[in-house]
């Protein structure tokens, strides 16, 4: 992974900074946040060294990944909440493919959010952070395969779709545990996210007995958890706060 990340930088850059950069990567646990940050840095170096005068990283301010993660968390939360409400059919009837596409898009947004918001968690809980990212990523792939398969009329792809969405909830649970343990962001929001992720899975299993209401409630809680974490990440990235937040 480390050598792949370094190879993303242009050869001229590697000749100058490669050794010391590699030494830094050897000294700390790398999480999804770091991968995103390094890939953005590599893109910046590629563009700058080609003389295009790009200012990708510095010009947009500190820790762009955190901001991207925050926006993605809010977007993912909105997509999930909308899709669950539409999918349950308690508001109005829609083509079933619409909530399906929203769910997969929401999972993709949450994957981006996971990468952007896991900077602190990956330091102390790298395995948990990477598992959260991997499970969600596999879920996104299964979700896309499932929704495409269903659109092509292959009903057996339904399970791929379901497991894909399940991946987003399991990944969110792992991320919530890492966030709660690290106290990097709001522990209350992390607790809400973790509990509602588990309860949504349970409500999905018992949907035939319990009816749609518990699932709607837990899904809204799940979305609210992500929403609060996203808003907090964006606030954390504001330039005004120089002192360590208490």
């Amino acid at each position, binding site marked *: 992974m480390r050598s792949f990340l370094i190879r993303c930088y242009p050869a001229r850059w590697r000749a100058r900074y490669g050794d*010391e950069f590699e030494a*830094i990567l050897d000294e700390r646990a790398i999480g999804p946040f770091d991968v995103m940050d390094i890939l953005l840095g590599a893109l910046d170096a590629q563009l700058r060294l080609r003389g295009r005068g790009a200012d990708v990283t510095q010009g947009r301010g500190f820790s762009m990944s955190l901001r991207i993660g925050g926006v993605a968390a809010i977007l993912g939360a909105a997509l999930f909440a909308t899709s669950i409400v539409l999918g349950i059919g308690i508001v109005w009837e829609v083509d079933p493919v619409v909530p399906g596409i929203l769910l997969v898009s929401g999972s993709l947004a949450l994957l981006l959010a996971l990468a952007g918001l896991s900077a602190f968690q990956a330091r102390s809980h790298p395995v948990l952070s990477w598992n959260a990212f991997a499970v969600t990523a596999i879920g996104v792939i299964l979700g896309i395969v499932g929704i495409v398969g269903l659109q092509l009329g292959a009903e057996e792809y339904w399970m791929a779709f379901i497991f894909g969405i399940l991946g987003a909830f399991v990944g969110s649970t792992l991320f919530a545990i890492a966030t709660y343990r690290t106290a990097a962001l709001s522990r209350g929001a992390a607790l809400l996210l973790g509990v509602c992720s588990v309860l949504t899975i349970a409500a999905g299993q018992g949907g035939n007995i319990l009816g749609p209401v518990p699932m709607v409630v837990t899904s809204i809680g799940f979305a609210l958890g992500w929403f609060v974490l996203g808003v907090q990440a964006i606030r954390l990235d504001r330039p*005004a706060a120089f002192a360590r937040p208490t």
Partner: protein
Amino acid sequence: MEQKTPEFGRFAEPSLLILVSLSDGPKHGYAIMQDVEAGTGRPMGAGTLYAALARLEEQGLIEPLPPVDRRRPYRLTAVGASNLAEQLRGLSAFAQMGLRQLGKTQS
């Protein structure tokens, strides 16, 4: 050399955080990252750090020292120190103006 105009929006720039970190002596990249994280409570990724370090070096605000093992320390140049002082004075004046205005509003 381009002199940055001190302004509020620059406060969070990684380059300023790096210059502040180097103001008490030379440091290598990992030490700068730890310093920034301890001071701001926010992580600075290695990609962001090196994008900013490369620019600061190009602008002559910092200079590399001979590497120790694979770690290469950086230190402020005289121009860098002057630039940092100018930015911090600007921020300080801006902060004082804000506090004065806030005081008037609250009284």
